[in-house]
């Protein structure tokens, strides 16, 4: 179980409508990521599904049942918060047991489940500690443990990795994906980090100002962004968006070309520019090119290492098959 559908859901805070009418279907077992810039309404949307915020209109159904008016406790969902939101006065064991205690599950069964969850999450040695005595990663695992034992219809994650350092973040990302493969439970994951979205999702929902800009698999979004916003948001480094004469040559208002689809030469090419900053990652090199006359700064991504000094002249040639075209409204031209 774990089908969730939103039907014409809206949310207003006072006079401000943060979510205009929105429809969305999430199917059982999917890993869905809500992604968008901060303030785009992705967390609000998650909280509406959780029941922590009331919808202003429209309805939400979970497994075919109307859940719009149900309190969070009755929706059968579990949530992992950015701040972990562990109970500081309870041991790890009691934290994990809490949802089962609320559900009135008997102690023997509680213990079996706690042991199993602790083993799966490498928390066995920490069961008697308080959250304050754990590291950030361990705390997040406890929060996940607390969610698992509920056996929810779906897991909701609200930017769960934002408080972790970069190295831990990658590790926890894999753990969550592993967990999804193992449990095959629906997961809804909110993040502002498009790399997390691309790597984790079966389905990405790109949001801007409460509006769904596009829904699709990571590669669909990457290859066929529906509009300029999605094109610019998905992919790292960002797609180069060129307007004016060069775009007109392709019968478009704007053309987009990803940094990895630009060829580089020091002698000849379509567009001439000057090297600004070059970022050497070893595996790749990102070169920021100025004075092309097309846009302020273009970014090029080259596999491997290449020598590029500040001020060098450089020529860029786009891969003609990889040019994205957008009309005056910013929508994709097929």
């Amino acid at each position, binding site marked *: 179980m774990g089908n969730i559908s939103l039907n014409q859901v809206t949310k207003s805070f006072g006079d401000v409508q943060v979510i205009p009418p929105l429809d969305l279907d999430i199917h059982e077992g999917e890993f869905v990521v809500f992604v968008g810039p901060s303030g785009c309404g992705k967390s609000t949307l998650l909280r509406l599904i959780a029941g*922590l915020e009331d919808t202003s209109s429209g309805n939400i159904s979970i497994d075919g049942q109307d859940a719009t008016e149900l309190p969070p406790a009755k929706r059968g969902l579990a949530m992992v*918060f*950015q*701040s972990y*939101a562990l*109970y500081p006065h309870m041991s790890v064991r009691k934290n994990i047991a809490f949802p089962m205690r*609320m559900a009135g599950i008997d102690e023997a069964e509680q213990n079996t489940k706690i042991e199993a969850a602790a083993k799966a999450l490498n928390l066995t040695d920490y069961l008697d500690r308080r959250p304050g005595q754990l590291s950030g990663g361990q705390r997040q695992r406890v929060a996940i443990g*607390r969610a698992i034992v509920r056996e929810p219809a779906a897991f909701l994650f609200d930017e769960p990795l934002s408080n972790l350092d970069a190295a831990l973040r990658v590790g926890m990302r894999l753990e969550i994906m592993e967990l999804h493969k193992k449990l095959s439970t629906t997961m809804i994951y909110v993040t502002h980090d498009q790399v997390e979205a691309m790597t984790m999702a079966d389905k990405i929902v790109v949001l801007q100002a409460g509006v769904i800009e596009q829904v699709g698999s990571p590669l669909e979004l990457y290859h066929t962004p529906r509009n300029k916003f999605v094109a610019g948001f998905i992919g790292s480094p960002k797609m180069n968006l060129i307007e004016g004469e060069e775009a007109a040559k392709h019968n478009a208002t704007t053309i987009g070309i990803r940094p990895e689809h630009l060829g580089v030469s020091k002698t000849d090419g379509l567009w001439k520019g000057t090297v600004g900053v070059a970022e050497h990652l070893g595996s790749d090199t990102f070169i920021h090119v100025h004075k092309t006359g097309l846009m302020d700064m273009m970014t090029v991504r080259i596999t491997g290492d290449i020598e590029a000094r500040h001020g060098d002249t450089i020529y860029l040639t786009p891969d003609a098959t990889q040019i994205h075209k957008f009309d005056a409204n910013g929508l994709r031209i097929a």
Partner: protein
Amino acid sequence: MARAVSTKQKVIWTALAWTFGLLMFFPILWTFLTSFKTEGQAIADPPVWFFFDWTLENYSAVQERSNYPKALMNSIVIAVGSTLLGIVIAVPAAWAMAFVPGKYTKDVLLWMLSTKMLPAVGVLYPLVLLAKWLGVIDSRILLVVVLMLINLPIIVWMLYTYFREIPGEILEASRMDGASLKSEIIYVLTPMALPGIASTILLNIILAWNEAFWTILLTTVNAAPLTAFIASFSAPEGLFYAKLSAASMMAIAPILIMGWFSQKQLVRGLTFGAVK
């Protein structure tokens, strides 16, 4: 950067602090000394300090003349009862104001506090009439309710301040975990706010214990607590200072001892939120 303090400055500040502290403590010390004097020594001019024949006769006289255990019991019931009743009412109120504030929450809080500015004597008459009509004058229950009402604004305010420090996400997590509102308050909010609740309880027990306006005016015999007990030793004529002092010492001793042992908690409670 720490400021350099010279030894001379340290000495001056320490001396000043001690002088001020002793000045504040002096009335208690004087009452303590007087309680062991005879009535004659108590009013002697020039005053007798430490060198007199210490006597316990005032203490036994006080015991004989009135019922100290009963007054003590009344004080305990009234102070503890009104505080606990106040807590039971104030926890949900403070929860609502801290976690689901409405448009007028701030106004309600200020309005509650403003009732503390009303002179108590202003409601004396209606309250006495009401108590008479209900037939509860000179009863513990009346004092429990009245003192609870008087201190309720402070209890709500204190709890509200503590609750505000608790991250809302933790309460939301408990809701996601299937906790009802009742479970959320009992198992999550209350344990997390326990230090704050304890400070609130302590402070309010002290306030209720020391409350002398209503406790003296609304009681005669049955519900008379220690405040009324002390007052009964003041007389328009005759010598009563030594006995009054003995009665005072007996009345303030329990709360003084409680305050001594819980001072850490009290100081933390009173300065909570001020320093962070």
